[in-house]
């Protein structure tokens, strides 16, 4: 049985985005380009089932990279079922954000069937579901660009597009790839990083196995 879907091309844009760098999470600074895990989040907003798992292959940057910076009141601690009487006013923490403005990306992606897929489920079924949902603009929750407050617009990509600055090749440094949620018994999730590079205005995302190897071995 076929386990991998065909490749989809999706456009995501919005007036504001912040793909927070983990090293500057306390006072947020964004990466210059959308991270693969943020892209995965966008796709999962359109369609996600336990039976599938999304992979992002390419992120094309269509708009120039522009910055903006502002301060806002965030909250210092997390609400969890254990915390009673969560008064935001008492847990305020004013912090700075350096975010991106007017972003426009085209994602090339596909999904793979996971071990949790039932016997009657097929790749074709989910491909059609995704296409239909994307076409109609249906989502499980509001897709967002890095932070929940920066809403994204998702749509099928046009057949022709021109990345911004196709002539430039630029290293972006080590970028957050995704979490390794199963690093071993009892251990917390492990962050994975990869060598990001803008090549002709496109960020090529390496496959997961390669990233796991570079981050000190896979499961």
């Amino acid at each position: 049985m076929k386990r991998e879907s065909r490749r989809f091309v999706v456009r995501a844009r919005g007036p504001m985005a912040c793909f927070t760098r983990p090293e500057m999470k306390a006072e947020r600074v964004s990466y210059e380009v959308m991270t693969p895990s943020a892209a995965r989040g966008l796709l999962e907003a359109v369609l996600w089932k336990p039976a599938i798992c999304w992979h992002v292959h390419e992120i094309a940057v269509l708009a120039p990279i522009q910055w903006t910076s502002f301060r806002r009141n965030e909250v210092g601690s997390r609400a969890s079922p254990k915390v009673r009487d969560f008064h935001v006013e008492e847990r305020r923490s004013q912090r700075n954000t350096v975010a991106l403005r007017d972003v426009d990306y085209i994602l090339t992606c596909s999904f793979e069937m996971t071990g949790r897929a039932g016997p009657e489920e097929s790749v074709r079924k989910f491909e059609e579901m995704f296409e239909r949902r994307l076409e109609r603009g249906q989502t499980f929750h509001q897709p967002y660009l890095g932070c929940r407050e920066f809403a994204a617009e998702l749509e099928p990509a046009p057949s022709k597009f021109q990345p911004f600055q196709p002539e430039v090749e630029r290293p972006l440094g080590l970028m957050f790839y995704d979490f390794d949620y199963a690093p071993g018994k009892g251990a917390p999730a492990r962050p994975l990083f990869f060598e990001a590079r803008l090549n002709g205005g496109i960020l090529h995302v390496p496959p997961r196995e390669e990233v796991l190897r570079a981050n000190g071995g896979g499961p």
Partner: protein
Amino acid sequence: MMLQALYALARDRGLLEDTDNEEHAVHFLLRVDAEGRPLALESTVDEKGRGKSLRIPRLPKRASGVSAGFLVDNAKYVLGLGNPEKDNPERLKLCMAAFQERVAGMVQATNDEGGRAVLRFLEAREQWLPVVLSWNPREAWSGDEYIAFIYAPDEVRCVHERESVRDWWRTERAREEQEGHAARVRCLVTGELAPPARLHPSVKSVPKGQSSGTSLVSFNEEAFCSHGLEQGANAPVSRAAAEGYTLALNWLLARAEGRRYRNGVALGTGAVTVFWTRKEIGFENVLSSLFEAPDEQRAVEMAQAPLRGLEPAELDSTLFYAATLSGNNARLVVRDWLETTVGAIKNNVRRYFEDLRLAGAQGQPLPLWKLLKAVDPPGRAELPPHLGTRLLSAALRGHAFPRELLAATLQRLRVPPRDGDSSSLHVRIALIKATLSRLPRSGLPPLELSMSLDEKNTATPYLLGRLFAVLERMQFAALGSTNTTLRDRYFGSAMAHPAIVFPQLLRLSNHHAAKADEKGFWLERLKNEVCAGLPARPFPTTLSLEEQGLFAVGYYHQRHRFFEKRVTDSEPTAV
């Protein structure tokens, strides 16, 4: 990329050669003999109250807990002398024990005689304390004085500088790094597999930050952490990289060459922009002086020489980095981050100074602090927090200046000038002119603003500004110096609502013209000339922010023409 760029800077400028030690101010040198007897307490404090900077074993990152330095630390740890009101004696005991324990560990491993002498002193501290206090009385200690030891036979070398002690310290640090961090993860900066640094070293002298230092990478509240990861594991950076980037930041922020920051420009009191290049070409120095400019003469020289393309062009492709930093309690805030080439910066900076150029004040380039000071809201000591950041960011990127800046400057212009406030008019108008000439061209009539009076400019706000200057001049010709001039009284409202103010001013000007003798005729003619350029319905009810800016520029140009005239008029008589 910022951490990588900083780490590369530290590596290239040789800041990483000895990361086991760091530069730190030491206030006293305590000389002890082989039996641990204190022989002398030598103060290194200069007339400004600053201790001498020495290379000492790297101090641990301190929060509220007790963690002692190695062989060098402050009086609380070394002698147990703290502030009697603030420091609790139990804690001081713990501090002393922690300090002594580190020395004892070293003596046990190396059996170094200098170390043994220090240990003997520490063991019998109760006995020796009166001797030390006889050299420097109890009241003189605040607890923050750093003390280093000298073993008497070594004469000048400190105990922490003895070879065997240094070797031990190096291996001890390597051992500490391995301890407790079984997991090796990929370092965010170098890409190598290494145990992550739990806490990152402090960055000093960041405006609005804590005086004890701020952290760029920190996770002090649970909301910052993800997936149950703790502290530094949230952003895995190896210890070497963490020390490297902080060394680089501290180096950039250090006081040097008569400037407040080695390679940085203060943006008001709230932020600082530091910049550096990938290869060392001295460009940062030029740029710092250009913006910060301790004296204007220097700025002129800097602006004229190196930026006119005297440097070889291949340096133009060198990468250039700029980061705007500010403090927020114990955290370091990055407000802006820019990565571009030296060539682009040169062009943008040249354009920035061109845009700011305005007739008057000998055409000197304006230092950044002067610009920011000129828009300080009256009665408040501080600028709106982001204005400076956005101004410098726009200057370096060649973007339009923030509209907020135009609003703030116009607001400031409306307030009647105080005595001795004449030069700030020039600064404010320069700022307005630069903002207007950088406006995005879409939707607005083209604004080609010249340095001095442009008689061909027929934009209504510009002409109204000129007219206002003429009317003010007529008042002066008629009445001489008055307590309240036309400008004090009507400038703000004439700028915002010409239709209400101008008819009244014109009526008033007839009286002035009558009183002003022969000079009045000339001014009257000039007034009519300017009015002739105005459209049929000359006075709009309101002017937009941009139009108000143009009004102010017109006013300044015309006013400056009067002063210029006076200079040229008086010249022939002088000859």
